[in-house]
């Protein structure tokens, strides 16, 4: 991310986000890079998202199978599919990866929660590849994403954990231990045979690569939970249906069907049995904050339309001239500020944690090896070997400490449920105050009302997130354990 010349909007962003304003004094280039990202997202909104959001939402109620590839191709120009890919691999993720992600999704979701989700779901799919340290796939999958993006071809990823009979259960170790798991990846010669279904997978029907967590023994899901890389085209793998959702429709929620799908050993991310840590908890610790940003973005969009409504004259007077509307606007503004504080508190903390890994000379030195070698099969087999994975594990444990990861999970869960509840209340109140007014703004706020509800559900229901905060911060019973070398699991 190159430093940009500060525009007026950039300066306003620094005022809007006081935490960034303070950091700007110490790290001009880094923060201006973030501002640049938000400005690009705003440009995408103006040119791509806003002109199609309402029509697309309505169309996808009539044709739930339709997908707007054009908006994704346009997103390539803005490089939104490289947000979670480290700079050394040609991506945009630097020491502000999580914060950048959060700021961009807030901006995108202020225009359309569905389009924002379609873009963000891809990075969520990328995250387990990064977090598991599965470097063997970085040079192939991530490289392909970056290179194709430059040509305007979106190569998408998705992240699959939810099963028809277990949603919340797969996001918390205590629950996973007693979950009724339907999908199983049975160990066979050379890899695993997968049978079963995943459901509600955001972007699952469009993704070329899917990071998936699954049990290798259904009777012991917690101990055998494992992260896999699934490729479209694997025999027996299909995405038979998408849901008709209340909102955020621009992004499909897909069912994934596995009928005797063979996944080779090379496609296990991390070790078998590491899934709860590297496939769930670390991902949640990174992603729940940005979900708070999605909620904040949708609420901000509703606030802006509400404000525009309040300024429109109706029957010779403007709602904004009324005291009660001004009070409501102030309340909503306060909620948005509070939300931003919550999700930034998480994302800046998260960046401080990941920064240790991604900017460390030891990490960077691995990329001094010529790409020709890094992309070669023997190198990949080395990284994929028992000892190769062990070495990556040692490094991860060195860079990221358990207590920091636990702290991040706590902050992420807090930001997620608090932002989502605040946002739901804000949007609901905006509609309540507008009534069935004839303004064109109402349609946008009604859409926000449908869109925002999902933020209370996905990435763990808000009840589960409350529990995660309680268990980590208050009771101290939930600890994230970064998978160590040659330890635990079923191996």
């Amino acid at each position, binding site marked *: 991310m190159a430093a940009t010349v500060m525009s007026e909007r950039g300066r306003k962003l620094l005022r809007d986000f006081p935490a960034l304003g303070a950091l700007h004094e110490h790290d001009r280039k880094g923060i201006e890079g973030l501002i640049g990202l938000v400005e690009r997202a705003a440009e995408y909104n103006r040119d791509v998202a806003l002109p199609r959001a*309402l029509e697309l939402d*309505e169309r996808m*109620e009539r044709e739930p199978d339709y997908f707007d590839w054009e908006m994704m191709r346009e997103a390539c120009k803005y490089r939104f599919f490289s947000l979670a890919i480290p700079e050394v691999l040609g991506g945009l993720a630097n020491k502000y990866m999580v914060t950048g992600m959060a700021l961009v999704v807030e901006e995108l979701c202020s225009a359309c929660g569905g389009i924002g989700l379609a873009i963000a779901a891809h990075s969520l799919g990328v995250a387990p590849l990064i977090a598991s340290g599965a470097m063997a796939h970085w040079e192939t999958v991530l490289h392909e994403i970056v290179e194709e993006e430059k040509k305007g071809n979106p190569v998408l990823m998705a992240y699959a954990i*939810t099963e028809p*009979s277990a*949603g*919340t*259960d797969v996001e*918390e170790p*205590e*629950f996973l231990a*007693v979950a*009724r798991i339907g999908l199983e990846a049975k160990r066979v010669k050379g890899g695993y045979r997968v049978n079963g279904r995943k*459901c*509600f997978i955001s972007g699952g029907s469009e993704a070329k690569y899917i990071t998936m967590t699954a049990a290798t023994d259904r009777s012991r899901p917690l101990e055998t939970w494992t992260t896999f890389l699934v490729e479209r085209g694997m025999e027996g793998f299909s995405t038979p249906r998408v*849901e*008709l*959702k*209340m*909102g955020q429709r621009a992004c499909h*929620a897909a069912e994934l069907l596995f009928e005797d799908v063979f996944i080779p050993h090379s496609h296990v991310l991390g070790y078998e049995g590491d899934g709860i840590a590297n496939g769930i908890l670390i991902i949640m610790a990174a992603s729940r904050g940005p979900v708070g940003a999605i909620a904040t973005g949708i609420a901000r969009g509703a606030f802006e339309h509400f404000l525009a409504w309040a300024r429109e004259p109706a*029957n010779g007077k403007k709602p904004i001239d009324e005291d*009660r509307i001004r009070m409501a606007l102030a309340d909503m503004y306060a909620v948005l500020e509070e939300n931003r504080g919550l999700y930034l508190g998480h994302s800046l903390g998260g960046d401080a944690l990941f920064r240790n890994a991604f900017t460390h000379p030891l990490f960077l030195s691995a990329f001094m090896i010529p790409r020709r070698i890094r992309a070669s099969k023997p190198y990949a087999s080395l990284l994929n070997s028992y000892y190769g994975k062990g070495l990556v594990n040692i490094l991860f444990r060195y860079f990221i400490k358990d207590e920091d990861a636990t702290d991040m999970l706590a902050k992420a869960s807090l930001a997620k449920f608090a932002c989502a509840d605040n946002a*739901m209340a804000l949007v*609901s109140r905006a*509609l*309540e*105050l*507008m*009534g*069935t*007014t*004839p303004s064109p703004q109402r*349609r946008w706020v*009604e859409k926000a*009302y*449908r869109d925002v*509800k*999902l933020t*209370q*559900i*996905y990435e763990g*229901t*808000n*009840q589960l997130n409350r529990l995660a905060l309680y268990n980590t911060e208050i009771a101290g019973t939930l600890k994230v354990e970064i998978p160590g070398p040659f330890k635990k699991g079923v191996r």
Partner: protein
Amino acid sequence: MARLPEFREEQEYRILRDSAASFAADVLAPQAEELDLQPAPWRVKKALAKADELGMLSALVPEEKGGGGLDDYAFCVALEEIAVEEAGVAVALLAHNAALLPAALGEFEGLITGVGEESYPACLAFPGEVALREGKVNARVPFAFNADGCPFITLIPTQEAGTRAVTVRSDAAGVSIEAEAYPLGLRAARPGALKMEGAEPSNLISGGDMLGAVERALFLGLSAVAVGIIRNALRKAYAYARERYQAGKMIIEHQQMRIFLAEMLAGVEEGRSLTRESCSSRELAPAVTAWMRNTARAVQAATDGVQIHGGYGYMRDYGMERLMRDAKYCQMYPTTSQEALLRLLDIYETG
């Protein structure tokens, strides 16, 4: 066996409750999804025609004028039961009956348009600007239920001595109706915007305070519809909570989920009492209060109901998200809750 606490009411209401419930279960429940997703006029009309067997197409018109002759509470009882299955149809019936109300209460020459003929659902053009000048109607009504596809419209002009309400056929010259492009909820009640320029009325109705009567009917009716929505949310969420395993036990065994469900139950109790109480008063204030309270409860119940269902609640197939959308429109019409609150104080001040 889960059951709602007995709500004490006279035999006649209980009988009506039962027949409305069977109508809703037999006629509306099987097509609830279509009535939301594709509420074609023929489908809505067919459902309403069946409701006529309960006297619901002229419920508030006295029997001597050829109507169903239900009292306010009986009408609310039927609406609540219908809304348990399909709130959109309940609101279509409410708007239709509110549109017939001026004719039922007032005096005019000729026959009431809409009673005893196939002329439904009628539209009540309210709230909006309506003026009667030199015998012609000029009006601008931004949002009214049943507007799209109605045969006739009832309007209540402001400041017109003698005439208190008029009806206008929707095919009369100067009438234009624009369907709401994409209604959030209550889609079977086909909302839309109305404009009239120099339209010829078919009935001129004189009488008492039509506006107050119509408003009161809307507030009461929507309070009852809101209770129906809460009941539907409770029923669906409770059934789901009993069949879905989560975190080592059934959802129903999770305390926080029990609190959500208990809130819904409290909402039904409170909602019914408020509705019943406000029916027994001729004043507007109790009806306004019941509407504010019940619709807010309904929005919360529907939102919590979706939450109990988790991801499934957000998907169309489970019929839960529809309640969130329907409940919200009940809260947004005919006025906003804050304007209603201010109205309450106005009523207090002016006596």
